[in-house]
């Protein structure tokens, strides 16, 4: 199986195997061709391969006549913020976010600082496949410059968005694991500006990930283990580029990344009722919480591109996924772990409640997530065949297959970023969730069998 995914989330692969500099040059040329060679901002996380990919991207963009503004090592949400506020035609984030260190990827961002929509991404893919790239003549090549003041501008805006005096007055203590990634420096500065005492773990931006950079409970042990001894109020674990975050309670309990959106929704909707956009795989607890504040939930296909796009259409206050990616739409339409942490801190400052208490108040569901390795070329066909196992009237085929009844739901879909089929089931009871997941798994494995013969 070749670990390479080319799709609407960009191009993603393992460096040294499939993600070659030639591929990166071609994709960057396709993106530059699509935005007609304007100004393009670039940033990377701390992976060692980032320097290689960044050089390939710069070479490609210069050859297309782009003005390239290099933000260096910089969190993706900060890149998106800067792109949105500047006159840039787009941006490229060089990061594989939650994937292991050997992976890397290009994420494309449009002039508004928003992850490309399906339609925008399709255009880039078409140009890539057609290989008809714009080539600037020798005396009209692009220019290369370093960006300045990006972090300051971002922090000014974020601190302004939050109720900083309330946060500072609460004398909070937090533990943050930045996974030696792109957020190491800015998290320190953000906490200083907010008046929060922060203990940082894995805060050397050297790209050596002490654990997988996915914010799931398995990777949150370091933070969880120090919460009680440090008497910390809350802990956070971030991806390598700061797009997603998971929360650790003051008790040392690592909360599933599903809870990040719920916690922030509870607070955001209490500030301002409105629409929350999420995907088809996210917990039904979100509807319950939104209902408490008279808000509503709209579901879109899985992926930041789809969810954030839908939030713009719906004029939503919040968008997010069960992966820990949350966009505070009134701040910026981008998954932003920094802003998300800020909202959680504001919530703790304004409510006289601990994280464990807030979470305990949420309706209880059991969610089961499974992965089945499956080659990308058959995964879509396999997912389609899962349909036959469920009553057709209870199915949603917007994105893979989603079955729902009064007791729970199961969602089966092909991963956009990895050669996997994902199965997610949820119910009020563990037994029912397990039944739904098992049934979907049997159907998928059965459908794969003919291809493996």
């Amino acid at each position, binding site marked *: 199986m070749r670990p390479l995914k080319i799709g609407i989330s960009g191009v993603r692969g393992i*460096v040294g195997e499939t993600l070659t500099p030639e591929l990166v040059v071609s994709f960057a040329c396709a993106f530059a061709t699509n935005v007609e060679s304007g100004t393009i901002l670039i940033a990377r996380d701390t*992976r060692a391969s980032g*320097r290689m990919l960044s050089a390939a991207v710069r070479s490609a963009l210069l050859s297309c006549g782009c003005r390239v503004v290099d933000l260096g090592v910089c969190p993706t949400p900060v890149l998106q913020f800067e792109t949105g506020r500047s006159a840039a035609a787009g941006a490229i984030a060089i990061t594989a976010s939650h994937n292991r*260190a050997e992976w*890397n990827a290009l994420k494309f961002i449009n002039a508004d600082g928003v992850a490309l929509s399906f339609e925008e991404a399709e255009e880039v893919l078409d140009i890539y496949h057609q290989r008809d790239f714009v080539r600037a003549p*020798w005396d009209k090549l692009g220019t290369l410059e370093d960006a300045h003041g990006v972090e300051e501008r971002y922090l000014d805006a974020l601190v302004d968005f939050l109720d900083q005096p309330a946060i500072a007055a609460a004398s909070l203590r937090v533990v943050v694991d930045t996974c030696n990634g792109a957020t190491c420096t800015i998290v320190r500065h953000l906490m200083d500006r907010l008046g929060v005492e922060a203990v940082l773990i894995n805060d050397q931006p050297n790209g050596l990930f002490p654990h997988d950079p996915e914010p799931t409970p398995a990777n949150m042990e370091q933070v969880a283990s120090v919460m009680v001894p440090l008497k910390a109020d809350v802990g956070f674990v971030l991806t390598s580029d700061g797009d997603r975050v998971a929360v650790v309670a003051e008790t040392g309990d690592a909360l599933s990344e599903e809870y990040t959106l719920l916690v922030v929704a509870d607070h955001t909707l209490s500030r301002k009722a409105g629409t929350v956009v999420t995907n088809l795989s996210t917990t039904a607890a979100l509807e319950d919480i939104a209902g408490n504040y008279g808000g509503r939930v709209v579901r879109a296909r899985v992926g930041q591109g789809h969810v954030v796009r839908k939030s713009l259409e719906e004029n939503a206050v919040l968008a997010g996924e069960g992966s820990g990616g949350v966009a505070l739409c009134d701040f910026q339409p981008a998954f932003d772990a920094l802003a998300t942490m800020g909202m959680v801190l504001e919530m703790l400052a304004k409510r006289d409640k601990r994280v464990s208490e807030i979470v305990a108040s949420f309706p209880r569901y059991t969610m089961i997530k499974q992965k089945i390795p499956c080659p990308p070329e058959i995964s879509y066909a396999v997912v389609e065949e899962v349909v036959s196992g469920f009553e057709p009237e209870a199915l949603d085929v917007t994105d893979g297959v989603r079955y729902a009844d009064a007791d729970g739901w199961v969602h089966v879909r092909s991963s956009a970023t990895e050669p996997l089929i994902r199965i997610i089931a949820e119910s009020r009871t563990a037994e029912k969730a397990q039944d739904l997941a098992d049934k979907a798994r049997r159907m998928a494995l059965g459908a794969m069998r003919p291809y493996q013969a």
Partner: protein
Amino acid sequence: MRQHSLKIGVSGVRGIVGESLTPELIVSFAQAFATYLGSGDVLVGRDTRPSGPMVREGVVAGLLSSGCRPVDLGICPTPSVLIRTAHSDAVGAICITASHNPARWNALKFAGPGGLFLDAHEAFALLDIYHQGEFARCPNAEMAVPDRMDDAVAFHIEKVLQFLDTEVIRERSFKVVVDCCNAAASVAAPDLLKRLGAHVTGCYCEFSDLFPREPEPVPDNVAALRETVVNENAVVGFALDPDGDRLELVDETGTPVSEEYTLVLVADHLLRKKVGTVVTNVSTTRAVDEVAARYGAAVVRTKVGEINVTRALMQRKGVLGGEGNGGIIIPDVHPCRDALVGMGVVLELMATTGMPLSQLVANLPRYAMYKMKIACSPSGALRALGELKQRYAERPVSTVDGLTISWDESWTNVRPSNTEPIIRVVAEARTRDEAQQLAARIASEIEALIRSSSP
């Protein structure tokens, strides 16, 4: 015949930016080179062409991806890159420059450990890797961190100063003008001259991405230098090409000295100090042989191409190499073409003899050269050269590169071009008229041979 601008060969990869020299091609070639080297530091220098940063980024990506560590020297003359490579732990170097070609061109030139450009065998090994497309792929965990190095020019200047009799030059406080085409040597060349006690007027000595004149250092392209030499009452003017490996002189009257004579002047001085073998190519002036004969020194002729001269020079342990295009190679400094050491030797010659440059040139044997091109397919060229060789069998002929036929005071070299479907005819004689007549005669003979053999 269809025109194409991409040239991939022994001397590297060269093309027109925006047409044939694409980032994809650059990345692939840099990966092939890193695969060829294995691992280690690779120094990267460039001239001032506007495409330099684009090409450098592609080179950096390719080197990293295939397991080498790029070390950026920034804007840097080619000889400085090579000399720094020789005196470091680097396993190779890439010079990003199309040398004397116009600004729309750019190129990658590859050097191995020791700062020597790849020879034909090494270059073919590199090309094989490129064509097979199977490059080493460095995983994330082993990827190098790129580095910078800022002392290549200073290092180069020190090496040149060590070679020269600086005392005797400094005593003269020469007034000189130097024209660097606003390119890579714009800092290095004036710095060296100042270190030699000269009062330096710069003419096009500011880094700029547009060449202010045609970049080849030949008499037709140095009008501004000639004027400045006269206005400043300077004793000599130096014109360099964009990457600082070729040198042309202008005398104190503002008269350009043909670039063919840079090597002859340098030979006259160095052989006086120390007799040894001189190596040059088959189409360089016979004035070199006459000057060498004055000192009892041998001259070895090689195929055209810097690397051929350099390698023969090292094999023969010669004291001087060079080409008629103004390229001077002094192996005691480094076996590569180097305009900086060329300037230094010319000043040492003037200081030692106390004679003006015009007088020194007048004392040299006088020859004139004439060059022509004939359109011809490569196979037709081969046939014509074979028949011409038989026709002149009674004359001293050489087939080191194409065909060279010699008479007592004249010679001609006929050679199919490596880059275009043409035959180059070079003739040299005591006067320009004689040279032109000889070239025209040989050209018409070749044209007749092509006509008679074509079906």
